[in-house]
Structure formats: structure tokens, C-alpha cells
């Protein structure tokens, strides 16, 4: 059964948190917990969501939640799953919420190990494309050309010189039971992927784009628009990996303008027409591959 606003759990499990206004990451966590329900056990490594959720004595998670080491989200999920199983508790979901840095850089070996062991956990990466919690440093998932404090934009170097790491396909290459990409802009798609993941035995990975108004340099009310536009212009794709096959969930017939998407964000303000051409060409190349290899 598909999940919608009407069938969604009405209770709030992530409430009163101290995230910036218009935070995409908190929207992803809130909605994921609404799908998984009160028996979800959340693991949060160092990152925005642990910083805004746990301010002693304020605890903004209404379900069980714990902070893990930065690198150990997946290992702690493994331990929680094993511990609950040993104690005979069956009705629970071990779910981790790590940022892009905590997933693609610092936590990648723990995640890889958990997928290798095929532990029954859900790992959600909320991707705001930099280390936003510590003041916007480049991560492995920062896209080409983005200005961060460690990849400043000047005359010679125009922001980040490296493309975004292909985390979804790295995870899929482990032959994981289920992996998916999503965006907070198309929340129904995200909710249904969480629901689907919760029914599958083994390791599940969901990569959700969660715009950060602070780090991206957009108005706080534009989070959802940016999260939709990144998919509409083709710089992000909604896909699933299941039964050894990639499947595209949304195939835009005509892409909206990449330039329009980039120009709205302060982190891309310095880009030249040449840079935008590089980004557009890499998008076209990616989609050519997707359309010829994926279902």
C-alpha cells in the first residue's frame, strides 16, 4: 500500500528541534520517522540532525534515538539490530540518519561493512552537499563548482574542482538488497521508498537530497523549490536499485535550465558560462548512460 498524507502517522517524532528555518534535512528525518513509526530506533552521527535534536535536557526525538560516533552510524545500527534481536524484540526498525559527509567520506567503511554483512537496517543519507553543521566545508558529495569555505571561489579556482561522488552507485555496487535516491521536493516518492525499504529484509540505503538554505544561499522559503528543481533540471535523478537492477523512478522528458537552477544559489554565483557548460555536458552524459543502461 502506498503512503500518502492521509495514511501517514499523524504523530510527530521529530519536534521542537533547533534546525535553521526551512531546513531540508529535518524535513527528511521528520517524514521518515512518520513512516517508520514509534518503534523506530534512530542513530545519528555527528552532524546537523544530532546537533539540533539533542540539546540537553531537550530531546526532540519522541522515539528512541542515540548519537553515534561520526564514522560509526552503520556499525551502531548493526549493534542495535543485533541487541534487539538478542533480547527477543521483533517490532522495531533500526534507522540511521547521516549527512553527506558522514556517509560518503567519514562513515563509508562502516556502511560498506554493514552492507557486506547484510544487516537488517535502513541507512538514510540526507545530502545537503557539504559539511553544513561545522560551517560549510566541502564533502565528497559537494557538486562541481560549489563554493564552500574550503573550496573558495576566486579568479583561478571557481569553487569545488571535483564532481559529486556517485554514492548511490557505490552502494549499489555492493549488490545491496535495496537502494534508492529521493529528494525532499517530491516527498511522496520519498515516503514510498522508505515504506518499501521497511518491508525488505537486509540492508537498505536511501539517499535523499535535502537543500540547506544556509549553505546553498537560497531564501528559507525556497527549500522545496530547489529540491524539485535539482531533479527537474537533471542534476539529480530519482532511481531505485533492487534485484540486481537499476530502475529510474522519474524520467523528465525535457530538462529545465541548469543555469537557472545554479544562478538562484549564492554558492554558484561565481560560475562562468564555461563552468555551466561543463556542468550541463556532464548532466547530458550522465543521462545518456542512465537511459541506455537502466530500466
Amino acid at each position, binding site marked *: 500500500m502506498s503512503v500518502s*498524507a492521509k495514511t501517514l502517522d499523524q504523530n510527530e517524532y521529530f519536534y521542537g528541534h533547533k534546525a535553521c528555518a526551512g531546513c531540508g534535512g529535518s524535513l527528511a528525518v521528520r517524514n521518515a520517522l512518520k513512516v517508520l513509526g514509534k518503534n523506530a530506533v534512530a542513530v545519528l552521527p555527528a552532524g546537523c540532525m544530532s546537533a539540533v535534536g539533542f540539546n540537553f535536557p531537550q530531546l526532540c526525538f519522541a522515539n528512541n534515538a542515540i548519537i553515534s560516533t561520526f564514522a560509526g552510524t552503520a556499525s551502531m545500527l548493526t549493534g542495535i539490530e543485533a541487541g534487539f534481536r538478542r533480547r527477543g524484540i521483533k517490532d522495531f526498525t533500526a534507522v540511521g540518519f547521516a549527512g553527506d559527509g558522514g556517509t560518503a567520506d567519514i562513515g563509508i567503511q562502516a556502511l560498506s561493512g554493514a552492507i557486506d554483512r547484510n544487516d537488517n537496517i535502513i541507512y538514510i543519507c540526507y545530502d545537503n552537499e557539504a559539511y553544513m553543521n561545522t560551517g560549510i566545508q566541502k564533502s565528497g558529495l559537494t557538486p562541481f563548482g560549489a563554493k564552500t569555505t574550503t573550496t573558495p571561489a576566486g579568479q583561478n579556482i571557481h569553487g569545488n574542482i571535483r564532481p559529486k561522488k556517485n554514492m548511490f552507485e557505490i552502494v549499489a555496487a555492493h549488490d545491496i538488497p535495496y537502494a534508492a535516491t529521493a529528494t525532499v521536493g517530491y516527498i511522496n516518492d520519498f515516503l514510498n521508498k522508505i515504506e518499501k525499504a521497511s518491508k525488505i529484509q537486509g540492508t537498505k540505503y536511501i539517499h535523499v537530497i535535502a537543500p540547506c538554505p544556509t549553505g546553498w544561499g537560497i531564501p528559507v522559503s525556497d527549500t522545496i523549490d530547489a529540491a524539485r528543481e535539482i531533479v527537474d533540471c537533471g542534476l539529480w535523478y530519482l532511481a531505485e536499485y533492487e534485484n540486481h537492477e537499476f530502475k529510474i523512478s522519474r524520467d523528465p522528458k525535457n530538462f529545465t535550465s541548469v543555469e537557472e537552477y545554479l544562478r538562484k544559489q549564492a554558492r554558484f554565483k561565481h560560475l562562468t558560462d564555461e563552468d555551466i557548460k561543463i556542468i550541463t555536458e556532464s548532466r547530458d552524459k550522465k543521462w545518456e548512460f542512465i537511459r541506455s543502461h537502466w530500466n
Partner: protein
Amino acid sequence: MIRPTVREKKTFGFADVPEDTSYEAGYLVTVNSGWRSIRPVVNTETCIGCMQCYLYCPDGVISIQDGKAVIDYDFCKGCGICSKLCKPHAIQMESER
């Protein structure tokens, strides 16, 4: 609809601080209303209860009661996502006085 609510802010001695990273789930002691410079106001005449604002609110402060959006102003940060998404334009942002 069950949400965590604001409870008493106790004073803690050093010995009371838990060793784990957690505290009692859903224990809130402060509100976020002071963060706002603008507030969303729902026009119940035009609100059709489509639940889009409820789905997309990062703070989960909107609930649908009797088919209309109701906002918990204690925790609304005034980001304006709800107002921007509202198709019938039933949510307007108004300046905080």
C-alpha cells in the same frame, strides 16, 4: 495527533547529567517561536485541507483539524514554505509585531 510538549525545565546537578547521549524521549523545555520575524496565518475560508503544508513543514508544526490547517506557533520558525506551497493561497505571511 500526539506531539512532544514543553515540560518543566529542572535544574540539574553534575551528578544528574546522564552518561549516555540521550535523555527522556520527546522532552522539550524551550520553544522556537522567538526565531520568527514573519508568521504564517491560515485563512480558513480558502483552506481546502489538502495537507501539502502539513507534509512539507520541516518542523511539523502544521496539523489538519476539521479539514483546515492549524499552526502550532510555539514551534513555527516562520520559514514560509507552507505559504509558498499553498495552491489556494490560503496561508499568508504576516509581520510579527
